[in-house]
């Protein structure tokens, strides 16, 4: 390939990207993609707000305690202790509530018995302790743990894998990449490109790159905002601990990388689907089902999907809750995971295969709007 030719192709790709960017970013029919990308961010913002509210309540209760409490103090309360013993360990409860129960007598003639119920609420600023006393003795205790990075990062992983990757990025790529050619056929404006002295493969590469830039910008921004919202309610020291000592920064970078690879993989799939199918619902449903049944497929077939490699790359495994039906458990498990370099290579190979089919298809395309 002559260097001059390569330079012209690159100039042409840039020209296609410039023309496409406005359409992909600001098309009215693509506004829903922003909504889909913003949904998990909203979810984490709502979660952060609710958690912050809870933390403020705990801090207020902790301040009202007679003395500063720690987690060990809260664990010292055991069932069967009297209210005086509880108060001697933790001090007078900052929040308490009591009521009397009229229990019917064992015999009809005897008078009913009055039983005193007391509820004490303590907090160490991070965790809550609810003590239920009946007749002056501890009958039940309930410790509600505050925000826990371990649990929260599993929740983040769940949202990332089951909503963000499988739905938001999937449908976002569908909306953008399927329209790169199909949208122009519907608008009857594809001939503008086909009348220019540009190789069809170069045109396809330019359009793919434009779609990739749009989806990566939208979904990587969403991913970063999700991480920021997720960490919002932690204290600065908690954030530092998570980011720099608990692989938080590494995980955040991996999530961004997985998002980029998802855009490449799904983008290539939907680019070729947009050329082969007139109705986007058919390929979307087919690919969604294919990706959905991936855990049940033999290993050989698994390799022809995007989610198989993406799941292998995700940094936090989602534990299977006890009692979950085996089929559901299989769905969320990362069965037969592959090593990260193979997973990255796998996605790139799958994407290149799809792009190769696109390049064959784009050479065959004709302008015949009346049959569309």
């Amino acid at each position, binding site marked *: 390939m002559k260097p001059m030719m390569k330079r*012209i*192709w690159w*100039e*042409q790709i840039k*020209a*296609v990207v*410039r*023309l496409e960017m*406005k*359409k992909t970013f600001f098309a009215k029919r693509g506004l829903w993609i922003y909504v889909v990308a913003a949904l998990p961010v909203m979810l984490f913002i709502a979660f952060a707000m609710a958690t912050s509210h809870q933390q403020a309540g705990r801090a207020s209760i902790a301040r009202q305690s007679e003395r500063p409490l720690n987690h060990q103090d809260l664990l010292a309360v055991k069932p069967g202790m009297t209210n005086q013993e509880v108060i001697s360990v933790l001090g007078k409860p900052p929040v308490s509530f009591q009521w009397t129960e009229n229990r019917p007598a064992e015999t009809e003639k005897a008078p009913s018995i009055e039983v005193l119920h007391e509820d004490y609420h303590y907090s160490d600023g991070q965790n809550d302790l609810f003590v239920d006393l009946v007749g002056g003795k501890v009958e039940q205790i309930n410790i509600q743990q505050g925000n826990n990075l371990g649990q929260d990062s599993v929740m983040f992983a769940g949202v990332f894998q089951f909503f963000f990757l499988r739905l938001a990025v999937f449908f976002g790529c569908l909306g953008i990449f399927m329209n790169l050619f199909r949208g122009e056929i519907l*608008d*009857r*404006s594809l*001939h*503008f*490109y*086909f*009348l*220019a*002295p*540009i*190789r*069809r493969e*170069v045109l396809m590469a330019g359009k793919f790159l434009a779609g990739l830039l749009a989806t990566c910008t939208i979904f990587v921004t969403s991913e970063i905002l999700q991480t920021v919202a997720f960490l919002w309610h932690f204290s600065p020291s908690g954030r530092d601990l998570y980011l720099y000592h608990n692989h938080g920064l590494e995980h955040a970078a991996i999530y961004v990388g997985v998002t980029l690879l998802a855009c490449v993989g799904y983008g290539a799939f939907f680019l070729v689907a947009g050329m082969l199918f007139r109705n986007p619902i058919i390929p979307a449903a087919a690919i969604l089902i294919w990706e959905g049944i991936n855990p049940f497929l033999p290993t050989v077939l698994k390799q022809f999907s995007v989610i198989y490699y993406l799941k292998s790359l995700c940094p936090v495994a989602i534990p299977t809750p006890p009692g979950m039906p085996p089929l559901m458990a299989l769905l969320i498990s990362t069965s037969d995971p592959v090593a990260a370099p193979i997973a990255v290579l796998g996605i790139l190979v799958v994407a290149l295969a799809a792009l190769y089919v696109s390049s064959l298809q784009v*050479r*065959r395309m*004709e*302008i*015949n*709007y009346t*049959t569309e």
Partner: protein
Amino acid sequence: MNDRTVNGRMVNDRIIFEDVSKFYGEILGVNRVNLSIPPGITSLVGPNGSGKTTLMNLMTGLVKPTRGRIQVLDYKIDDPENLFRVLGYSTQFDAFPKGLTGFQFVYSYLRLSGRDSRSAERLAWRAIERVNLVEAAKRKVAGYSKGMRQRIRLAQALSHDPKVLVLDEPLNGLDPLARSEMIALFRSTAAAGCYVIISSHILHEVDVISDQVILLSNGYVVAEGQIQNVRSEIQEHPTQILIRCSRPRELAAKMFEYEHTIEVSIHKDERGLLLKTRDADRFYLALNELAVNGIEIESIAPADDDVLSVYEYLIGNEEAVR
């Protein structure tokens, strides 16, 4: 016969269709087309659905032939990268990329060719000036009138100085002044040695500008070449000739003495006559003799070698378009 040697290399200087057919499913687009189009203005003539646009789309690679071979000068139609460096096509598709101004439309096309921004800008303005659209160039194409859209498409097709200019119904939507400007533009382009292929269903329009015509009907080429040559080959219809002279009745009487004269009618102003002959060559010899013998001939003009008459003769009145 279309190949010539330049610098020791064989080059083709025609637009060639070899046994080309195009079917859209079971619907015929064009069938068994054989053409060799020389430089100059060539008009594709035929009613709607006759295959004009299909022929143009085939020529530019927008559709692929079901059968046959097409070559535009030295380029194959499946090589857009090189083909569109020598070819500009103004289509009938009335849709544009969204949100572009007239200038951006032409400029973007030139950038797609790989030109740098300065060269693209210069060429875009030059093309826009050629179609007289400078004042509206910064407005969005979506707000253009039909005639302005037609002109901006023409500017796009012309912008890179193509050797071959393919124009699908280029005069549609233009006012009379713009039409004459565009016709002058086509003529100057053809005079510079370019190939200007125009489609039209308005026969009197192409009659005045075409160097050669291709008559189409129901997907078939029914005739091609210079219109006078096409006309002379239609033997079953007598040639009509309008003669302006001093003594039309005397000339009519003399003409009836010749066996090839079929019909003569005297013009209302008594200063001319319309004659139908089955042999134009023998008529002209006879007229020369009569002129020598004292009848003063002011002018002679064929009355039915225009595209409309030829089309009527070939296709029939019911299909001829006006």
